[in-house]
């Protein structure tokens, strides 16, 4: 549990950080809250030559409104997300899911953007970002670009963020009056990674579901959308029977891995059960 040696650069602005990453070459790594990276370093599972610490970059912290969207700075800690009034007002599902991330100590240091950029398939927040149709602002030498959630999560621990880029902020649409979300997490102990997690966001109109977006945690190398279930829900009723039938499609097209906690078939079963529960919560039934 002793990391190999590395160089450390303390960045004070986004440009500063990007410059340091370019200078550091291929083995440079961004250090955000450090809650995933430090264990990897200590177990010598990764050997970066340079760590670029973006902790001091003030512009990366905080939540602001931008028209119909909320813009969340990548370095906003889980702790701050949970207590943020704008998030509570416009997208409470983010706070509800973040409350389930690890334990209080991790939530005090871990960051929203760090969790998304690390893209652990068992992490809770990628599925939430996916279900919310978030957009990701990425800064690099050529300026900034915006990537939709559907294109952001590329593979196991891989995102659209390039080696000399950093994730700057995440934009999520404000949820309107008829829209509600819920994240349902299943783990064996409270502070563990999700065995399976489901984030359901539904737009309702009276007793009808006009649209549903369902993000799945740990059902593949990246977070996935439960498209078959979403389609079954869209335009249908919010009655229990219809929700149950739609949830039964939640694992369709998934090919989850098996591990100590769950074989693939059990994971798929959990995805169906949790989808139904997440939908029931979101629909207030």
């Amino acid at each position, binding site marked *: 549990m002793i990391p190999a040696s590395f160089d450390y650069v303390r960045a004070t602005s986004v440009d500063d950080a990007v410059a340091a990453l370019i200078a550091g070459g291929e083995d440079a790594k961004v250090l955000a809250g450090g809650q995933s990276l430090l264990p990897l370093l200590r177990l010598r599972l990764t050997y970066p030559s340079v760590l670029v610490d973006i902790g001091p970059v003030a512009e990366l912290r905080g939540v602001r409104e931008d028209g119909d969207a909320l813009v969340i700075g990548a370095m906003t800690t889980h702790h701050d997300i949970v207590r943020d009034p704008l998030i509570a007002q416009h997208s409470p599902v983010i706070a509800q899911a973040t409350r389930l991330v690890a334990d209080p100590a991790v939530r005090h240091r871990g960051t929203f953007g760090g969790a998304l950029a690390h893209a652990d398939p068992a992490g809770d927040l990628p599925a939430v970002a996916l279900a919310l149709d978030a957009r990701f602002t990425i800064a690099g030498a050529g300026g900034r670009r915006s990537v939709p959630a559907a294109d952001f999560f590329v593979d196991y621990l891989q995102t659209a963020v390039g080696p000399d880029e950093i994730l700057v902020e995440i934009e999520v649409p404000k949820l309107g009056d008829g829209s509600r979300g819920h994240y349902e997490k299943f783990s064996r*102990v409270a502070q563990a990674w999700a065995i399976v997690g489901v984030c359901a966001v539904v737009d309702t109109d009276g007793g009808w579901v006009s649209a549903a977006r369902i993000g799945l945690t740990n059902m593949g190398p990246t977070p996935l959308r439960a498209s078959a279930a979403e389609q079954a829900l869209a335009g249908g009723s919010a009655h229990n029977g219809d929700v149950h039938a739609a949830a039964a499609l939640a694992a369709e097209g998934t090919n989850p891995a098996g591990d100590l906690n769950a074989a693939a078939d059990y994971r798929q079963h959990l995805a169906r059960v949790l989808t139904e529960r997440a939908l029931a919560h979101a629909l207030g039934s």
Partner: protein
Amino acid sequence: MTEELDAGLVAEQIAESGEQSSPDGTRQIGQARRRKEDAKLITGQTRWTDNITLPGLLHMAVLRSPMAHARISRVDVSAAIKRPGVIAAFSGADLAADLGSLPCAWPVTADMVHPDHPPLATEEVRYVGDAVAVVVARGRYQAADALEAIEVEYEPLPPVLDMEEALKDEALVHSDKGTNKCFLWPFDGGDYDAAKAKAEVVLKRRFIQQRLIPTALEPRCVVVEPIAAANEFTVYSATQIPHILRVMLALVTSIPEHKIRVIAPDVGGGFGSKLNVYAEEVIALVVAKRLGRPVKWTESRSEGYQATIHGRDQIQDIEIAAKRDGTILGLSVDLKADMGAYLQLVTPGIPILGAFMFNSIYKMEGYRFRCTGVFTTKTPTDAYRGAGRPEATYAIERIMTELAVELGIDPMEIRRKNWIKHEEFPYETIAGMTYDSGNYEAATDRAMQLFGYDELLREQQERRDRHDPVQLGIGISTFTEMCGLAPSRVLGSLSYGAGGWEAASIRMLPTGKVEVVTGTSPHGQGHGTSWSQIAADALGVAFEDVEVIHGDTDSAPMGMDTYGSRSLVVGGVAVHLAAQKVIEKARRVAAHMLEADEGDIDFAAGSFSVKGSPEASKTIQDVALATFAAHDLPEGMEPSINADAVLDPENFSFPHGTHLCAVEIDTETGFTKIRSYVAVDDIGNVINPMIVEGQVHGGLAQGIAQALYEEAVYDAEGNLITGSLVDYLVPAAPDLPEFTTDRTVTAATSNPLGVKGVGEAGTIASTPAVMNAVVDALRPYGVNDIRMPATPERVWRAIQEGSSGGERSAAGTVSYGGAQTAATAGGAE
């Protein structure tokens, strides 16, 4: 030191002399005093071994085998020596002449197979994590970096992972021994065959005690400080057993015992895992001697998971013979116990301790016990909280419930029918133990009252009737255990390498303050507080005026250390006995000071007075000062009222209790939630109820952890795949219910304080209570057992298989052939 004391005799004397109390009249024993230790622990002003720095300190790092079993064809440390900061690097061969073989002090049978256990492997590695080479560097990071430069060539040998396969002796862990069988230890009480012949029902079950990994908060650590010119060594170690360690280090390294001082500074938990003599302690000592410089080694958590002992790991084939009315006639136990690759300090004795506990609180005519120790290419097992008794208690409490179900009798009624009645104590059990005291009826009645048993039964039926997705299960554990590990002659008859006595000294300081020197070695138990309460009451001094000294073979030279819930019942009682001796010496001085006859001096509340004229008195502090001055002592009296006591108890102590657990199982996911848990323990008289409460809570957490969460899993190549806290699930506060605890008090008759041990009771009792509840919830689905831990996936699969009309037997246990591997762990692909 002085002659041993007869505890029973002293008990009578104390009963005659009446209760003593502190100067303000408040009896300390029984009060929830805040722990003296905590202020420094919670403010970080501690001496954890890893906090110790010494001038010129070097850091040692250990290269470990990545293979479960292999021949070492080459070890080359030359490149590591050239790395920055490196002072030395050694292979096993380099140090073999000095290292010796790690000790096993419990050869359970005369023909036990006892392989050499080199602290650094020389010819073969036999588990992943077996130490192969060490690097010593100026910095800890430099040492860790240099490990990567050591070259080792291995020729793979077949791993041996499954106990039943191992017993076929096809692939051998120790090829020179010709077998993987370590020992067969038989025991018979009464005549099991005769009892079985009379039986109307015979029930067989196979239970699996999964392998567990002790997780003490503080990792292991050792610092060795040599004084080369004098050939003297101070060994600081995060150990439970400084005294035993000193003896063993002397025996293993041939450094003379009187040249070794062992100190256990603040130690952060052990649970048995620090009741051992480890390779790194021996290596650090030998390396420090070679280099003439102080050396430190601290394990990382993942390193410790491989290289610190594991616990449990048994296959239990249990057979119970009974009449249809529920009367038990006999019990047969056939154990296979995984030793791991080598025998650590008391490895073979752990399952043997269970031999006396399978019969538990029940009367029967015949008992048969067989235990086969088996070598595998895994981390050695040894004592883990409860050590043999949790395994035994689990088996008997599970099969008692299964027998009740088989016979259609309420599971509590079948226990009542068979347990020893309170008026039958002292009672000699079928396993040859004499239980001095107990009242199972009282503890059970209290527990049932707190639990609301009948109401829960009603709710269970309602949930079953309406096919509620959340099912309720109720589990019972009416347990006893044996702790104190004494008397010495009994340990001798079990071939245990040491005695079961404990030492205490009391030093009366000139200013009236008191030093209590104990041979116990607390590592979280709060002896500093409890021993102060005992001494304060006995001597009539203030709690705050007592300091407890422990854990250093220089300042506390005599001791047997802390394990097996022995500290209070042996060490704490020894403090009390030493205090009685102090009073007797002080009485003589006081009589002289008061110009009265010794026989006319009363002692109460810290004050000696002349019978009939209480105004003529001297406090024990007055006496201490007068003795220090020594100007006018009784003729022929030595100028000291200090006293030592060494207690070898007359018997084990037998705490007992009734634990009741209600679980809710989400049948859609298989998740088990403990809804309520009632623990009524009878641990005799209580010194500090708050410390007792803490012990019970922690014990429950660890027992529940075995039932629902923890399991060491190896893959087919013998890699520990639950090698960190990410994969080895230790529950934390949010995962546990609010416990309802209470006590009944049936004083032990085997010691003058009437106390029993409490350190392991919660762990021993809770695992079967939880598992009985889990299985109870699933009975409607045709389930009658679940492999531990009852993970959500295992529970879900049991429901699927049961309700689809498949095998009626348990999920996980049917085809189980031995120790946990990924292939049999139930969830892995």
